[in-house]
Every structure is written in C-alpha cells, then in structure tokens.
C-alpha cells in the first residue's frame, strides 16, 4: 500500500481531466453531486443559525415578546448597560479572559517548545498529561478545582476562576503552537547557532518570531473560550462580581427575559471579533495560509 501511495500516479487522461477541473475550482469529474446533499446543507445551516438569528433579532425588539417583532429599539441594551451589577459582570468576564489569555499563552507556548524539542521520557508523559484536559468533561474540572480551592482555603473570587481557566487553556495553546513548531525547518535555528547565537538568543530571535501567528491565534482562541466559559466559572465563582455567563444562567432559570438576548448578542460580537481576528492573523503577517489551518493545527481537535 505504502509503495503505491508514495509513487506519484502516472497521468492518465482521467486524472489530467480531474486536475484541470480542480484547478478551475470545480469538483473533479466522476463525483456524484446528489441534489439531496445540497438540500441537506441548506436545512443544516438553517438549523444551525436560526436560533442565533432569533437571539440577535429579538435583542432589538421594542416589546417583551419573543414571538412577534414589534419594532426596532435598543431598550434591552440600555437595561443591560444601566445595570451596575451586569456592567461589573461584563468587566469581570473581560478581565478573566484577558489574564487567562496572557498567562495560558505564555505557559502553553513554552510547553509546546519543550515537548517538541526535549523528547525525553518526562516529555513523553507530559505530552499525554497535556492532552487530558482537552477530553476531560468540564464538570469534572470544575468540581475538582472547587474542591482544591476550598482545601487550600483560597477564597472563591475572580482569582480562582482565572486559575481554573488557565489550567484548561494551556493545552489549547500547546496543541496549536506545537503544530506550527513541527512545520518549522530546523536549519534556520542551526544556522543561527553556527553564527554564534546562544540557544536562548536563537529561541528569542529565530524561533519565536516564526511562531508569532500561531501564538497570537492561540491566545485569541483562549480569550474567546474563557470569555464564553460557563461550567468552570460556575463552580469556582465567588459571590460578586460573577462573570456574565453565570449571570445569564441565573437569569434563564428565572424564565425567558429579553435582556438575555442583548447580553447574548453582545457576547457573540466579542467572541466573533476575537475568533475572526485569529483567523485573519496569518494574513496580517503576510502569509498566504488559512488561519483556520493554524488554529486547528494538524490534530483537528
């Protein structure tokens, strides 16, 4: 199998035609394009976006109703921003996300470099450990973090939320940065050392600049994840200020309220801005690759 795959196939008329089709952006010939699949995609995107469009639309409704739109108004946004406690929650959420982003990005980037370049028995074990948070249900993380904080008598506050968020963000950064690191050619680093740079100088002047797009993209991803996180915050939050998602939870439990639409829309804008920026980053750095590929790394998870 491998010998067949490693050799480039001889260009038969069929593959030539297929390549030509691909080059023009059309799917290669010989593929079915069942019409039902197109229909399916339409229904899928409707199902995917209808609830979100609903939230955004009704955040501008002038009445309390969630069934009929009675005119444009920004009253629910005014309710949101006029409430001092909701404003405090918004600021708290932003603080948590920012601090989490900075610390997790630093820790995750260093870890990625160590994992790729050290290759000792310790790094092998750490590689496994690093992946575990990615597949641990959040409730486990939340409950165990809560337990730890009470055991060491750390009062629940924004600090405890941030500690929990960082713990679960490191792995995302490491995965994204490591994928980028694995693609870098070692020769430039070797050349730098040949020219008399120390290892630290080489890391700072050669490796890190090449990693920047991935590092920043990972940071923005962490910002969005932390800003949106509910479960970890819910378990580790103090009395006040509570981050926005925890406030939303309390409000939803009291029933459907139009203010939630406004808060939701506002959070959506912030998340989409940070993710959009992450996707555009490689272009800003003058690279022609897709930001999505950088973010998803090679592991796709």
């Amino acid at each position, binding site marked *: 199998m491998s010998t067949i795959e490693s050799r480039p196939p001889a260009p038969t008329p069929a593959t030539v035609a297929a390549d030509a089709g691909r080059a023009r952006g059309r799917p290669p010939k010989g593929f079915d394009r069942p019409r039902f699949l197109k229909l399916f995609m339409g229904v899928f995107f409707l199902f995917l976006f209808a609830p979100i469009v609903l939230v955004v639309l009704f955040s501008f409704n002038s009445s309390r109703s969630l069934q009929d739109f009675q005119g444009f108004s920004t009253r629910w946004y005014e309710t949101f921003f006029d409430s001092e406690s909701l404003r405090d929650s918004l600021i708290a959420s932003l603080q948590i996300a920012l601090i989490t982003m900075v610390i997790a990005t630093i820790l995750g980037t260093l870890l990625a470099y160590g994992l790729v370049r050290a290759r000792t028995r310790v790094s092998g074990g750490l590689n496994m450990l690093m992946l575990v948070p990615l597949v641990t249900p959040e409730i486990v993380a939340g409950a165990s973090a809560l337990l730890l904080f009470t055991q060491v008598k750390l009062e629940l506050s924004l600090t405890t939320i941030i500690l929990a968020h960082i713990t679960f963000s490191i792995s995302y950064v490491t995965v994204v940065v490591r994928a980028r*690191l694995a693609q870098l050619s070692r020769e430039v680093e070797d050349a730098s050392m040949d020219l008399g740079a120390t290892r630290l100088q080489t890391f700072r002047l050669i490796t890190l600049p090449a990693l920047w797009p991935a590092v920043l993209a990972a940071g923005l991803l962490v910002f969005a994840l932390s800003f949106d996180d509910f479960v970890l915050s819910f378990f580790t939050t103090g009395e006040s200020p509570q981050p926005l998602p925890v406030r939303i939870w309390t409000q939803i439990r009291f029933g459907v309220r139009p203010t939630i639409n406004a808060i939701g829309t506002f959070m959506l804008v912030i998340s989409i801005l940070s993710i959009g920026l992450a996707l555009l980053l490689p272009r800003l750095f003058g690279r022609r690759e897709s930001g999505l590929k950088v973010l998803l790394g090679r592991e796709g998870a």
Partner: protein
Amino acid sequence: MTEKRFASLFLVPGGVWLLLLFVTPLVFLLAISFGYTDDLGEAIYSTRLGNYERLVDPDYLPVLFRSVGFAFAAVALCLLIGYPVAYYIAIFGGRWKNVLIALVVLPFFVNYLIRTYAWIAMLGDDGLVNGLLNTDVRFLNTPYAVIGGLVYGFLAFMILPVYAALDRMDPSLIEAGKDLYGGPWQTFRHVTWPHTIQGVLAGSVLVFLPAVGDFVSASLLGGPGEVMVGNLIQQQFQASDNWPFGAALTVAMMAFLMIFMLLYLRAAARETREATA
C-alpha cells in the same frame, strides 16, 4: 547546554502548573469520594465505600444509564448530521471550503447557554414555533429536547475531525472505486468510510465525553424525568452540599469515560508523533 536540557527547562512552568492545578485536584476528588459529611455538613476524609454503594441505588442508577443513553444518541445524531456536512464541504466545497468550515464553527463560539436559551424561546409552550404554526406541541421537558440540545451543543466536535479525515483522503481513490464499477454506496462503504473511520472515531469520542458530563441541556431543556449525571454532580456540589457523594459520582463517571479518553489520547499521541517526527 545540550538542546535536550535547554528544551526540558521549557517544560517546567507548564508541567508544574498542570501537576498542581489539574492532577492534584483530581487526587483530592478521589480521596474525598471515600469520605462522608458530618452533622455540620462538613466533608470528612475517610475510607468508606458508602458513596459508591449509593451509585447503584434505584434513585441514581437510572440516571447513570440515562446519561450514557442520551450521550450515545447525541453521538449517533451528530454523525448522521455531521458526516454528510463534512463530506459536502470536503468534496464539493472547492474554494469555499474554508468559508463553509468557518460558518460551521462560528455558532459554536456563541455562548452555549445563549444557544440553549434560544431553543427555549423557539420551542417553549408559547414559543416561536408553536406561535407560528398555531399548535400546542410540547417540545421541552422531553428526552428529545435534551438530546437535541446536546447535538446542537457539540456538533462541531464531530464535523471537524471527520472533515479533516475526508480532506486528507486522496479524491482519486473515490474515482478508482468508481472505475472498478463500484456504485455510490459500494464506493462509500469500501473506500470513503474506511478511510475516514479514524476521524469518525475521534469525533464520536469528542462528542461523547462532554455530552455524558453535560448538565446545561438537561437543566434548561429537560424536566425532572431527564436528569443526567451532570445534574446530580452539580446538585451535590452546590444545593445539597454533599461533596463526598458528588465526588464519587464524578470519579465513577471519569472511570467509565477513561476507556474512551485513552482511546482518543492514544490516537492523538500517535498522530502527533507522526506529525513531529
């Protein structure tokens, strides 16, 4: 300093952090699960098995089975919906591939609570759908609503790995299948599906793990008959304040999920080794 020594230093901050704030809490969790609460409601460490015996109590056992059942149903639905979507984008996406994938991922950066809440607004007894159709269907507080919430919550975790697998596949393999007189179904069954099975498995695990532990969907879209293990854990740690029992529930859930986690981790580690070798 050798490169190994130099690079090993970089492992220290992140490694220590994960040991202190990820591994240690899990050890505490395991330890307290053998404990009990005294008359003041204080959690006391001990070596009792009572919390684990309570798991098979008729009050709790059905909840555990239900959680697994709901999660499996969510995985099946995610696969049923996600595979065709990933297939369409990977094979027919052309230069819109990245845009389409970004569109698929986008909703998952809308807060999970808000997305679930939107379904309440749409499907509630006096929600949008019942209003538009002038019907009186009870959507919420049913198992379907909870499973639907899980699907809507975690669908991207299925689509991304399946898409990655399909995208990696050489399209001429499908042509080869057709050249060998395979019909669309045969070609799919013997060529496409086997080539993407790793992505399907990864996606299934990535949906299954958070779905089993979820409590948001069941809390907001379900009624008392749809309680999942996540709800029990959350109650024990908050309202009921019985941390040892909550810990036992969590440990039992983790133990069950461990098989699936290991499966995924082994595949992920192998892939990284290949990618970074």
